Protein backbone atom coordinates (compact mmCIF):
# COMPACT_ATOMS: atom_id res chain seq x y z
CA UNK A 1 0.00 0.00 0.00
CA UNK A 2 2.68 2.51 0.99
CA UNK A 3 4.70 1.39 -2.02
CA UNK A 4 1.70 2.02 -4.23
CA UNK A 5 1.12 5.45 -2.69
CA UNK A 6 4.77 6.33 -3.11
CA UNK A 7 4.73 5.23 -6.73
CA UNK A 8 1.61 7.22 -7.44
CA UNK A 9 2.98 10.27 -5.67
CA UNK A 10 6.17 10.16 -7.71
CA UNK A 11 4.12 9.90 -10.89
CA UNK A 12 2.07 12.91 -9.91
CA UNK A 13 5.15 14.95 -9.11
CA UNK A 14 6.40 14.30 -12.64
CA UNK A 15 2.95 15.18 -13.91
CA UNK A 16 2.92 18.45 -11.98
CA UNK A 17 6.33 19.30 -13.38
CA UNK A 18 5.08 18.60 -16.93
CA UNK A 19 2.11 20.84 -16.28
CA UNK A 20 4.45 23.62 -15.18
CA UNK A 21 6.51 23.25 -18.35
CA UNK A 22 3.45 23.30 -20.61
CA UNK A 23 1.95 26.27 -18.78
CA UNK A 24 5.21 28.19 -19.01
CA UNK A 25 5.65 27.34 -22.68
CA UNK A 26 2.12 28.34 -23.64
CA UNK A 27 2.46 31.77 -22.07
CA UNK A 28 5.86 32.42 -23.62
CA UNK A 29 5.10 31.12 -27.09
CA UNK A 30 1.97 33.22 -27.45
CA UNK A 31 2.51 35.90 -30.09
CA UNK A 32 4.67 38.64 -28.62
CA UNK A 33 5.15 36.66 -25.46
CA UNK A 34 4.73 38.38 -22.10
CA UNK A 35 5.87 41.65 -23.70
CA UNK A 36 2.85 41.81 -26.00
CA UNK A 37 0.82 44.11 -23.80
CA UNK A 38 3.59 46.68 -23.55
CA UNK A 39 3.72 47.04 -27.33
CA UNK A 40 0.14 48.29 -27.18
CA UNK A 41 1.09 51.43 -25.23
CA UNK A 42 1.11 54.39 -27.67
CA UNK A 43 4.55 55.81 -28.33
CA UNK A 44 6.40 52.71 -27.18
CA UNK A 45 9.70 52.40 -29.03
CA UNK A 46 11.76 49.35 -29.76
CA UNK A 47 14.56 50.54 -27.43
CA UNK A 48 12.15 50.99 -24.55
CA UNK A 49 10.79 47.52 -25.18
CA UNK A 50 14.32 46.16 -25.01
CA UNK A 51 14.90 47.94 -21.72
CA UNK A 52 11.70 46.45 -20.31
CA UNK A 53 12.65 43.01 -21.59
CA UNK A 54 16.07 43.34 -19.99
CA UNK A 55 14.72 44.53 -16.66
CA UNK A 56 12.25 41.68 -16.55
CA UNK A 57 14.87 39.20 -17.62
CA UNK A 58 12.94 38.31 -20.75
CA UNK A 59 16.03 38.59 -22.98
CA UNK A 60 17.68 35.57 -21.40
CA UNK A 61 17.46 32.13 -22.95
CA UNK A 62 14.16 30.35 -22.27
CA UNK A 63 15.58 27.48 -20.19
CA UNK A 64 17.27 30.00 -17.86
CA UNK A 65 14.04 31.91 -17.57
CA UNK A 66 12.16 28.72 -16.86
CA UNK A 67 14.59 27.64 -14.16
CA UNK A 68 14.46 31.04 -12.47
CA UNK A 69 10.65 31.03 -12.60
CA UNK A 70 10.48 27.48 -11.28
CA UNK A 71 12.91 28.18 -8.42
CA UNK A 72 11.00 31.26 -7.29
CA UNK A 73 7.70 29.41 -7.65
CA UNK A 74 9.01 26.83 -5.19
CA UNK A 75 10.12 29.33 -2.54
CA UNK A 76 6.96 31.43 -2.83
CA UNK A 77 8.36 34.46 -4.65
CA UNK A 78 5.76 34.71 -7.33
CA UNK A 79 6.73 38.14 -8.54
CA UNK A 80 4.49 41.05 -9.39
CA UNK A 81 1.56 41.32 -11.75
CA UNK A 82 2.40 42.65 -15.23
CA UNK A 83 -0.77 44.67 -15.11
CA UNK A 84 -0.56 46.69 -11.91
CA UNK A 85 2.63 45.53 -10.20
CA UNK A 86 0.81 44.12 -7.17
CA UNK A 87 2.41 41.01 -5.71
CA UNK A 88 0.92 38.01 -7.51
CA UNK A 89 0.36 36.09 -4.30
CA UNK A 90 -1.64 39.01 -2.94
CA UNK A 91 -3.79 39.25 -6.06
CA UNK A 92 -4.49 35.52 -6.02
CA UNK A 93 -5.23 35.65 -2.30
CA UNK A 94 -7.68 38.49 -2.70
CA UNK A 95 -9.67 36.57 -5.29
CA UNK A 96 -9.30 33.16 -3.72
CA UNK A 97 -11.92 33.62 -1.04
CA UNK A 98 -14.92 34.52 -3.24
CA UNK A 99 -13.96 31.73 -5.62
CA UNK A 100 -13.72 29.19 -2.83
CA UNK A 101 -17.02 30.33 -1.36
CA UNK A 102 -18.70 29.88 -4.70
CA UNK A 103 -17.13 26.46 -5.23
CA UNK A 104 -17.96 25.26 -1.74
CA UNK A 105 -21.53 26.47 -1.69
CA UNK A 106 -22.29 25.11 -5.14
CA UNK A 107 -20.70 21.76 -4.37
CA UNK A 108 -22.66 21.42 -1.14
CA UNK A 109 -25.85 22.11 -3.05
CA UNK A 110 -24.78 19.77 -5.82
CA UNK A 111 -23.84 16.89 -3.52
CA UNK A 112 -27.05 17.14 -1.51
CA UNK A 113 -29.37 17.44 -4.50
CA UNK A 114 -27.35 15.04 -6.63
CA UNK A 115 -27.33 12.39 -3.92
CA UNK A 116 -31.05 12.75 -3.39
CA UNK A 117 -31.83 12.51 -7.10
CA UNK A 118 -29.40 9.64 -7.68
CA UNK A 119 -30.43 7.52 -4.69
CA UNK A 120 -34.12 8.01 -5.30
CA UNK A 121 -33.60 7.21 -8.97
CA UNK A 122 -31.85 3.98 -8.07
CA UNK A 123 -34.39 2.87 -5.47
CA UNK A 124 -37.35 3.70 -7.70
CA UNK A 125 -35.63 2.47 -10.78
CA UNK A 126 -37.64 2.85 -14.00
CA UNK A 127 -40.14 5.09 -12.30
CA UNK A 128 -41.28 8.33 -13.89
CA UNK A 129 -38.97 10.16 -11.51
CA UNK A 130 -36.04 8.07 -12.68
CA UNK A 131 -36.70 8.75 -16.35
CA UNK A 132 -37.13 12.46 -15.79
CA UNK A 133 -33.91 12.54 -13.76
CA UNK A 134 -32.04 10.66 -16.49
CA UNK A 135 -33.29 12.94 -19.24
CA UNK A 136 -32.77 16.01 -17.07
CA UNK A 137 -29.18 15.05 -16.35
CA UNK A 138 -28.44 14.59 -20.06
CA UNK A 139 -29.96 17.94 -20.92
CA UNK A 140 -28.16 19.65 -18.04
CA UNK A 141 -24.87 18.32 -19.36
CA UNK A 142 -25.70 19.68 -22.81
CA UNK A 143 -26.67 23.23 -21.90
CA UNK A 144 -23.83 25.73 -22.34
CA UNK A 145 -23.37 27.04 -18.79
CA UNK A 146 -22.79 30.63 -19.85
CA UNK A 147 -26.04 30.64 -21.76
CA UNK A 148 -27.91 29.01 -18.89
CA UNK A 149 -26.58 31.80 -16.66
CA UNK A 150 -27.96 34.32 -19.13
CA UNK A 151 -31.38 32.65 -19.16
CA UNK A 152 -31.31 32.47 -15.36
CA UNK A 153 -30.59 36.21 -15.13
CA UNK A 154 -33.29 36.94 -17.67
CA UNK A 155 -35.93 34.96 -15.78
CA UNK A 156 -35.04 35.63 -12.15
CA UNK A 157 -33.42 39.05 -12.30
CA UNK A 158 -35.01 40.78 -15.27
CA UNK A 159 -38.51 39.30 -15.44
CA UNK A 160 -39.23 38.32 -11.85
CA UNK A 161 -36.72 40.64 -10.13
CA UNK A 162 -36.21 38.09 -7.35
CA UNK A 163 -32.44 38.02 -7.44
CA UNK A 164 -29.78 40.65 -8.05
CA UNK A 165 -28.22 40.37 -11.51
CA UNK A 166 -24.60 40.72 -10.44
CA UNK A 167 -21.80 41.63 -8.05
CA UNK A 168 -20.85 40.24 -4.65
CA UNK A 169 -23.04 42.51 -2.54
CA UNK A 170 -25.02 45.73 -2.64
CA UNK A 171 -22.68 48.63 -2.01
CA UNK A 172 -23.31 50.03 1.45
CA UNK A 173 -25.11 46.90 2.64
CA UNK A 174 -22.73 44.51 4.31
CA UNK A 175 -25.28 42.13 5.84
CA UNK A 176 -24.99 38.38 5.47
CA UNK A 177 -28.48 38.10 3.99
CA UNK A 178 -27.61 40.50 1.21
CA UNK A 179 -24.47 38.52 0.49
CA UNK A 180 -26.38 35.26 0.45
CA UNK A 181 -28.94 36.69 -1.95
CA UNK A 182 -26.15 37.53 -4.36
CA UNK A 183 -24.73 34.05 -4.00
CA UNK A 184 -27.93 32.15 -4.91
CA UNK A 185 -27.97 32.60 -8.69
CA UNK A 186 -24.33 31.79 -9.55
CA UNK A 187 -24.33 29.00 -7.00
CA UNK A 188 -27.38 27.28 -8.49
CA UNK A 189 -26.24 27.70 -12.08
CA UNK A 190 -22.80 26.28 -11.28
CA UNK A 191 -24.35 23.44 -9.33
CA UNK A 192 -26.49 22.32 -12.27
CA UNK A 193 -23.81 20.43 -14.17
CA UNK A 194 -22.36 18.95 -11.00
CA UNK A 195 -25.80 17.79 -9.88
CA UNK A 196 -26.17 16.03 -13.21
CA UNK A 197 -22.80 14.27 -12.96
CA UNK A 198 -23.16 13.47 -9.28
CA UNK A 199 -26.67 12.05 -9.55
CA UNK A 200 -25.50 9.72 -12.33
CA UNK A 201 -22.62 8.44 -10.20
CA UNK A 202 -24.87 8.05 -7.19
CA UNK A 203 -27.50 6.17 -9.16
CA UNK A 204 -24.94 3.81 -10.68
CA UNK A 205 -23.23 3.07 -7.37
CA UNK A 206 -26.55 2.56 -5.59
CA UNK A 207 -27.70 0.17 -8.29
CA UNK A 208 -24.60 -1.94 -7.74
CA UNK A 209 -25.52 -2.35 -4.10
CA UNK A 210 -29.28 -2.28 -4.07
CA UNK A 211 -29.67 -5.81 -5.39
CA UNK A 212 -26.94 -7.43 -3.30
CA UNK A 213 -27.83 -10.39 -1.15
CA UNK A 214 -27.37 -8.67 2.17
CA UNK A 215 -29.73 -5.94 1.20
CA UNK A 216 -32.28 -8.50 0.08
CA UNK A 217 -31.88 -10.25 3.42
CA UNK A 218 -32.41 -6.99 5.23
CA UNK A 219 -35.48 -6.36 3.16
CA UNK A 220 -36.77 -9.86 3.83
CA UNK A 221 -36.27 -9.35 7.55
CA UNK A 222 -38.51 -6.32 7.28
CA UNK A 223 -36.10 -3.42 7.47
CA UNK A 224 -38.58 -0.67 6.84
CA UNK A 225 -39.02 1.50 3.84
CA UNK A 226 -36.08 3.18 2.33
CA UNK A 227 -33.11 0.84 2.47
CA UNK A 228 -30.48 3.37 1.68
CA UNK A 229 -28.82 3.45 5.12
CA UNK A 230 -27.93 -0.19 4.59
CA UNK A 231 -26.74 0.27 1.05
CA UNK A 232 -24.90 3.48 1.23
CA UNK A 233 -21.86 3.12 3.47
CA UNK A 234 -20.64 -0.11 1.91
CA UNK A 235 -19.68 1.17 -1.48
CA UNK A 236 -19.46 4.88 -1.15
CA UNK A 237 -15.89 5.64 -0.34
CA UNK A 238 -14.35 4.60 -3.67
CA UNK A 239 -17.20 6.16 -5.57
CA UNK A 240 -16.71 9.47 -3.87
CA UNK A 241 -13.26 9.74 -5.38
CA UNK A 242 -14.16 8.71 -8.89
CA UNK A 243 -15.74 11.91 -10.15
CA UNK A 244 -12.63 13.82 -9.11
CA UNK A 245 -11.51 14.62 -12.59
CA UNK A 246 -14.93 15.73 -13.75
CA UNK A 247 -15.16 17.75 -10.56
CA UNK A 248 -11.92 19.60 -11.21
CA UNK A 249 -12.76 20.32 -14.83
CA UNK A 250 -16.20 21.59 -13.91
CA UNK A 251 -14.97 24.06 -11.38
CA UNK A 252 -12.22 25.60 -13.39
CA UNK A 253 -14.52 26.36 -16.29
CA UNK A 254 -17.47 27.32 -14.25
CA UNK A 255 -15.91 29.66 -11.78
CA UNK A 256 -14.48 31.51 -14.75
CA UNK A 257 -17.94 31.71 -16.17
CA UNK A 258 -19.40 32.95 -12.92
CA UNK A 259 -16.81 35.68 -12.86
CA UNK A 260 -17.75 36.81 -16.34
CA UNK A 261 -21.45 36.43 -15.90
CA UNK A 262 -22.05 37.87 -12.44
CA UNK A 263 -18.84 39.89 -12.08
CA UNK A 264 -18.25 37.60 -9.13
CA UNK A 265 -15.25 38.49 -7.00
CA UNK A 266 -13.70 40.88 -9.45
Amino acid at each position, binding site marked *: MSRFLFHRLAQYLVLLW*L*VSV*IGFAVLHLAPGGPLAQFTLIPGMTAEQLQVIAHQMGLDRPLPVQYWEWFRRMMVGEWGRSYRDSQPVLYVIGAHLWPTLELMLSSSVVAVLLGTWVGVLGAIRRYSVFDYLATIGAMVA*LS*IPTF*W*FGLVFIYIFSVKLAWLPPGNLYTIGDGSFLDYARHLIAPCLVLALVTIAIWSRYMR*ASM*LEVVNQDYVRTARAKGVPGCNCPRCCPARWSPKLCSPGRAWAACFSIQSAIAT*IRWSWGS
Partner: protein
Amino acid sequence: MTEATDIAATVARPSRARSRALARFVRHRLALFGLAAIVVLVLLCAAGPYLWPYNDLRINMRQRFAEPLLAGLHVFGTDELGRDMLARLMMAGRVSLTVGFAAMAISTLVGILVGTLAGYFGGMIGTALMRFVDAVLCFPSIFLLLALAAFVQPTLLSITLVIAATAWMEVARVVEAQIRSLRERDFALASEALGASDAHIMFRELLPNAIAPIVVASTLNVARAILLEAYVSYLGYGIQPPVPSWGNMLNNAQEYLVTAPWLALLPGLLITLAVTGFNFVGDGLRDALDPRLDIS
Protein backbone atom coordinates in the same frame (compact mmCIF):
# COMPACT_ATOMS: atom_id res chain seq x y z
CA MET B 1 -25.16 -13.26 -10.14
CA THR B 2 -27.61 -12.08 -12.79
CA GLU B 3 -30.06 -14.70 -11.61
CA ALA B 4 -29.83 -13.43 -8.05
CA THR B 5 -30.24 -9.91 -9.30
CA ASP B 6 -33.26 -10.91 -11.31
CA ILE B 7 -34.89 -12.65 -8.37
CA ALA B 8 -34.25 -9.72 -6.09
CA ALA B 9 -35.55 -7.32 -8.66
CA THR B 10 -38.61 -9.44 -9.27
CA VAL B 11 -39.35 -9.37 -5.58
CA ALA B 12 -38.96 -5.65 -5.52
CA ARG B 13 -40.82 -4.92 -8.68
CA PRO B 14 -43.16 -7.48 -10.20
CA SER B 15 -43.61 -5.71 -13.51
CA ARG B 16 -39.91 -5.76 -14.23
CA ALA B 17 -40.17 -7.40 -17.63
CA ARG B 18 -42.58 -4.80 -18.82
CA SER B 19 -40.50 -2.00 -17.27
CA ARG B 20 -37.41 -3.26 -19.01
CA ALA B 21 -39.10 -3.17 -22.34
CA LEU B 22 -40.29 0.30 -21.48
CA ALA B 23 -36.77 1.27 -20.51
CA ARG B 24 -35.40 0.00 -23.79
CA PHE B 25 -38.14 1.78 -25.67
CA VAL B 26 -37.56 5.08 -23.91
CA ARG B 27 -33.80 4.84 -24.36
CA HIS B 28 -34.36 3.97 -27.94
CA ARG B 29 -36.76 6.83 -28.33
CA LEU B 30 -34.33 9.31 -26.76
CA ALA B 31 -31.63 8.24 -29.17
CA LEU B 32 -34.11 8.47 -32.02
CA PHE B 33 -35.17 11.91 -30.85
CA GLY B 34 -31.52 12.93 -30.78
CA LEU B 35 -30.97 11.56 -34.27
CA ALA B 36 -34.09 13.32 -35.54
CA ALA B 37 -32.96 16.61 -34.00
CA ILE B 38 -29.55 16.29 -35.63
CA VAL B 39 -30.96 15.39 -39.04
CA VAL B 40 -33.46 18.26 -38.94
CA LEU B 41 -30.77 20.74 -37.87
CA VAL B 42 -28.33 19.56 -40.52
CA LEU B 43 -30.95 19.68 -43.28
CA LEU B 44 -32.19 23.08 -42.15
CA CYS B 45 -28.70 24.56 -42.07
CA ALA B 46 -27.60 22.94 -45.32
CA ALA B 47 -30.66 23.66 -47.45
CA GLY B 48 -32.36 26.48 -45.56
CA PRO B 49 -30.27 29.41 -46.76
CA TYR B 50 -31.08 28.56 -50.40
CA LEU B 51 -34.81 28.52 -49.75
CA TRP B 52 -35.16 31.41 -47.34
CA PRO B 53 -35.75 34.84 -48.95
CA TYR B 54 -33.50 36.75 -46.55
CA ASN B 55 -29.73 36.86 -46.64
CA ASP B 56 -27.95 36.51 -43.33
CA LEU B 57 -25.79 39.58 -43.99
CA ARG B 58 -28.44 41.93 -45.37
CA ILE B 59 -28.77 44.92 -43.09
CA ASN B 60 -32.10 46.70 -42.76
CA MET B 61 -31.94 49.61 -40.36
CA ARG B 62 -35.69 50.22 -40.62
CA GLN B 63 -36.44 46.88 -39.05
CA ARG B 64 -34.00 46.60 -36.18
CA PHE B 65 -35.10 44.48 -33.25
CA ALA B 66 -38.26 43.24 -34.95
CA GLU B 67 -39.94 40.88 -32.54
CA PRO B 68 -40.41 37.26 -33.56
CA LEU B 69 -43.70 36.48 -35.32
CA LEU B 70 -44.73 40.13 -35.35
CA ALA B 71 -42.78 41.43 -38.33
CA GLY B 72 -44.07 39.71 -41.41
CA LEU B 73 -41.68 37.12 -42.74
CA HIS B 74 -39.07 37.62 -40.01
CA VAL B 75 -40.35 34.58 -38.13
CA PHE B 76 -37.57 34.68 -35.56
CA GLY B 77 -37.29 38.46 -35.55
CA THR B 78 -34.29 40.56 -36.50
CA ASP B 79 -31.14 41.58 -34.68
CA GLU B 80 -29.55 44.90 -33.83
CA LEU B 81 -28.76 45.60 -37.48
CA GLY B 82 -32.08 44.40 -38.82
CA ARG B 83 -30.62 41.16 -40.13
CA ASP B 84 -33.03 38.24 -40.28
CA MET B 85 -32.48 35.94 -37.31
CA LEU B 86 -33.56 32.72 -39.00
CA ALA B 87 -31.18 33.29 -41.90
CA ARG B 88 -28.38 34.02 -39.45
CA LEU B 89 -29.20 31.01 -37.30
CA MET B 90 -29.06 28.73 -40.33
CA MET B 91 -25.75 30.11 -41.57
CA ALA B 92 -24.38 29.99 -38.02
CA GLY B 93 -25.53 26.39 -37.79
CA ARG B 94 -23.50 25.54 -40.87
CA VAL B 95 -20.39 26.93 -39.21
CA SER B 96 -21.03 25.41 -35.79
CA LEU B 97 -21.97 21.97 -37.07
CA THR B 98 -19.06 21.91 -39.51
CA VAL B 99 -16.66 22.76 -36.73
CA GLY B 100 -18.29 20.09 -34.57
CA PHE B 101 -18.00 17.30 -37.15
CA ALA B 102 -14.56 18.28 -38.41
CA ALA B 103 -13.08 18.65 -34.93
CA MET B 104 -14.57 15.26 -34.05
CA ALA B 105 -12.96 13.63 -37.09
CA ILE B 106 -9.54 15.10 -36.38
CA SER B 107 -9.56 14.47 -32.65
CA THR B 108 -10.76 10.90 -33.19
CA LEU B 109 -7.94 10.23 -35.66
CA VAL B 110 -5.30 11.67 -33.35
CA GLY B 111 -6.78 9.89 -30.36
CA ILE B 112 -6.85 6.56 -32.19
CA LEU B 113 -3.25 6.97 -33.32
CA VAL B 114 -1.89 7.92 -29.90
CA GLY B 115 -4.03 5.36 -28.07
CA THR B 116 -3.14 2.52 -30.41
CA LEU B 117 0.58 3.22 -30.29
CA ALA B 118 0.55 3.57 -26.51
CA GLY B 119 -1.59 0.51 -25.94
CA TYR B 120 0.26 -1.68 -28.39
CA PHE B 121 3.85 -0.89 -27.52
CA GLY B 122 3.29 -0.25 -23.82
CA GLY B 123 6.47 0.08 -21.78
CA MET B 124 8.37 3.31 -22.10
CA ILE B 125 6.53 4.58 -25.17
CA GLY B 126 3.14 3.78 -23.72
CA THR B 127 3.92 5.35 -20.36
CA ALA B 128 5.37 8.47 -21.96
CA LEU B 129 2.40 8.92 -24.30
CA MET B 130 -0.22 8.30 -21.65
CA ARG B 131 1.49 10.55 -19.11
CA PHE B 132 1.48 13.23 -21.77
CA VAL B 133 -2.25 12.65 -22.25
CA ASP B 134 -2.72 12.96 -18.48
CA ALA B 135 -0.71 16.16 -18.42
CA VAL B 136 -2.81 17.72 -21.18
CA LEU B 137 -5.97 16.56 -19.39
CA CYS B 138 -4.83 18.49 -16.31
CA PHE B 139 -5.45 21.77 -18.08
CA PRO B 140 -9.03 22.94 -18.13
CA SER B 141 -9.94 22.65 -21.80
CA ILE B 142 -11.22 26.23 -21.83
CA PHE B 143 -7.87 27.52 -20.66
CA LEU B 144 -6.03 25.39 -23.20
CA LEU B 145 -8.45 26.52 -25.87
CA LEU B 146 -8.02 30.22 -25.10
CA ALA B 147 -4.25 29.97 -24.88
CA LEU B 148 -4.09 28.13 -28.21
CA ALA B 149 -6.62 30.49 -29.79
CA ALA B 150 -4.31 33.39 -28.93
CA PHE B 151 -1.59 31.86 -31.15
CA VAL B 152 -3.54 31.65 -34.34
CA GLN B 153 -5.63 33.82 -36.57
CA PRO B 154 -9.16 32.73 -35.80
CA THR B 155 -10.44 31.10 -38.96
CA LEU B 156 -12.78 28.18 -39.46
CA LEU B 157 -9.85 25.83 -39.96
CA SER B 158 -7.70 27.05 -37.11
CA ILE B 159 -10.58 27.02 -34.61
CA THR B 160 -11.42 23.48 -35.69
CA LEU B 161 -7.81 22.38 -35.20
CA VAL B 162 -7.59 24.09 -31.83
CA ILE B 163 -10.79 22.45 -30.61
CA ALA B 164 -9.57 19.09 -31.89
CA ALA B 165 -6.32 19.65 -29.99
CA THR B 166 -8.25 19.88 -26.72
CA ALA B 167 -10.58 16.95 -27.39
CA TRP B 168 -8.44 14.00 -28.50
CA MET B 169 -7.38 12.82 -25.04
CA GLU B 170 -10.57 10.97 -24.10
CA VAL B 171 -10.46 8.93 -27.29
CA ALA B 172 -6.78 8.19 -26.71
CA ARG B 173 -7.52 6.87 -23.22
CA VAL B 174 -10.42 4.72 -24.36
CA VAL B 175 -8.46 3.27 -27.26
CA GLU B 176 -5.35 2.67 -25.18
CA ALA B 177 -7.30 0.69 -22.58
CA GLN B 178 -9.00 -1.39 -25.29
CA ILE B 179 -5.85 -2.11 -27.26
CA ARG B 180 -3.86 -2.96 -24.14
CA SER B 181 -6.36 -5.63 -23.13
CA LEU B 182 -6.95 -6.87 -26.69
CA ARG B 183 -3.30 -7.38 -27.49
CA GLU B 184 -3.03 -10.11 -24.87
CA ARG B 185 -5.85 -12.08 -26.51
CA ASP B 186 -5.13 -15.24 -28.42
CA PHE B 187 -5.97 -13.89 -31.84
CA ALA B 188 -3.45 -11.09 -31.43
CA LEU B 189 -0.79 -13.48 -30.17
CA ALA B 190 -1.54 -15.83 -33.05
CA SER B 191 -1.20 -13.06 -35.54
CA GLU B 192 2.11 -12.09 -33.97
CA ALA B 193 3.30 -15.69 -34.07
CA LEU B 194 2.43 -15.85 -37.75
CA GLY B 195 4.87 -13.02 -38.30
CA ALA B 196 2.44 -10.19 -38.98
CA SER B 197 3.93 -6.72 -38.84
CA ASP B 198 3.22 -4.39 -35.94
CA ALA B 199 1.18 -2.12 -38.18
CA HIS B 200 -0.92 -5.04 -39.41
CA ILE B 201 -1.67 -6.27 -35.90
CA MET B 202 -2.45 -2.78 -34.66
CA PHE B 203 -4.69 -1.54 -37.44
CA ARG B 204 -6.09 -4.69 -39.04
CA GLU B 205 -6.46 -7.02 -36.07
CA LEU B 206 -6.83 -4.97 -32.90
CA LEU B 207 -8.42 -1.70 -33.95
CA PRO B 208 -11.55 -3.17 -35.61
CA ASN B 209 -12.30 -4.88 -32.30
CA ALA B 210 -12.13 -1.59 -30.46
CA ILE B 211 -14.46 0.24 -32.82
CA ALA B 212 -17.56 0.29 -30.59
CA PRO B 213 -16.21 2.51 -27.80
CA ILE B 214 -14.54 4.72 -30.41
CA VAL B 215 -17.86 5.32 -32.12
CA VAL B 216 -19.45 6.22 -28.81
CA ALA B 217 -16.61 8.50 -27.77
CA SER B 218 -16.54 10.30 -31.09
CA THR B 219 -20.29 10.87 -31.10
CA LEU B 220 -19.99 12.46 -27.68
CA ASN B 221 -17.01 14.41 -29.02
CA VAL B 222 -19.19 16.14 -31.61
CA ALA B 223 -21.36 17.40 -28.78
CA ARG B 224 -18.29 18.56 -26.91
CA ALA B 225 -16.82 20.28 -29.94
CA ILE B 226 -20.03 22.20 -30.60
CA LEU B 227 -20.07 23.32 -26.97
CA LEU B 228 -16.41 24.33 -27.05
CA GLU B 229 -16.87 26.28 -30.27
CA ALA B 230 -19.76 28.09 -28.63
CA TYR B 231 -17.59 28.89 -25.61
CA VAL B 232 -14.64 30.36 -27.54
CA SER B 233 -16.79 32.21 -30.03
CA TYR B 234 -18.90 33.56 -27.20
CA LEU B 235 -15.76 34.87 -25.53
CA GLY B 236 -14.74 36.48 -28.82
CA TYR B 237 -11.74 34.29 -29.65
CA GLY B 238 -13.51 31.94 -32.03
CA ILE B 239 -15.32 32.47 -35.29
CA GLN B 240 -15.21 36.18 -36.07
CA PRO B 241 -18.19 38.27 -37.19
CA PRO B 242 -19.63 38.96 -39.72
CA VAL B 243 -19.50 35.16 -40.20
CA PRO B 244 -22.13 34.00 -37.72
CA SER B 245 -21.77 31.04 -35.41
CA TRP B 246 -24.16 30.11 -32.62
CA GLY B 247 -21.51 31.10 -30.11
CA ASN B 248 -20.67 34.55 -31.45
CA MET B 249 -24.34 35.36 -31.92
CA LEU B 250 -24.65 35.01 -28.15
CA ASN B 251 -21.70 37.32 -27.68
CA ASN B 252 -23.48 40.22 -29.36
CA ALA B 253 -26.84 39.38 -27.88
CA GLN B 254 -25.92 39.74 -24.24
CA GLU B 255 -26.21 43.54 -24.27
CA TYR B 256 -29.80 43.38 -25.48
CA LEU B 257 -30.99 40.83 -22.94
CA VAL B 258 -33.60 43.15 -21.46
CA THR B 259 -34.97 44.68 -24.65
CA ALA B 260 -34.52 41.88 -27.18
CA PRO B 261 -34.19 38.57 -25.30
CA TRP B 262 -34.79 36.42 -28.39
CA LEU B 263 -31.35 37.39 -29.69
CA ALA B 264 -29.83 35.49 -26.77
CA LEU B 265 -32.43 32.75 -26.31
CA LEU B 266 -32.61 31.37 -29.86
CA PRO B 267 -28.92 30.59 -30.55
CA GLY B 268 -28.58 29.06 -27.07
CA LEU B 269 -31.62 26.89 -27.65
CA LEU B 270 -30.16 25.60 -30.90
CA ILE B 271 -26.81 24.85 -29.24
CA THR B 272 -28.61 22.98 -26.49
CA LEU B 273 -30.72 21.09 -29.02
CA ALA B 274 -27.72 20.04 -31.10
CA VAL B 275 -25.59 19.06 -28.13
CA THR B 276 -28.44 17.18 -26.45
CA GLY B 277 -29.08 15.40 -29.73
CA PHE B 278 -25.52 14.14 -30.02
CA ASN B 279 -25.41 13.21 -26.34
CA PHE B 280 -28.63 11.18 -26.63
CA VAL B 281 -27.36 9.39 -29.72
CA GLY B 282 -24.01 8.69 -28.04
CA ASP B 283 -25.77 7.35 -24.97
CA GLY B 284 -28.04 5.17 -27.09
CA LEU B 285 -25.06 3.83 -29.03
CA ARG B 286 -23.26 3.04 -25.80
CA ASP B 287 -26.20 0.94 -24.66
CA ALA B 288 -26.60 -0.70 -28.03
CA LEU B 289 -22.93 -1.51 -28.54
CA ASP B 290 -21.87 -2.52 -25.05
CA PRO B 291 -22.64 -6.22 -24.61
CA ARG B 292 -21.81 -6.20 -20.90
CA LEU B 293 -24.31 -3.55 -20.04
CA ASP B 294 -27.79 -4.58 -19.05
CA ILE B 295 -30.09 -1.74 -19.99
CA SER B 296 -29.97 0.48 -16.96
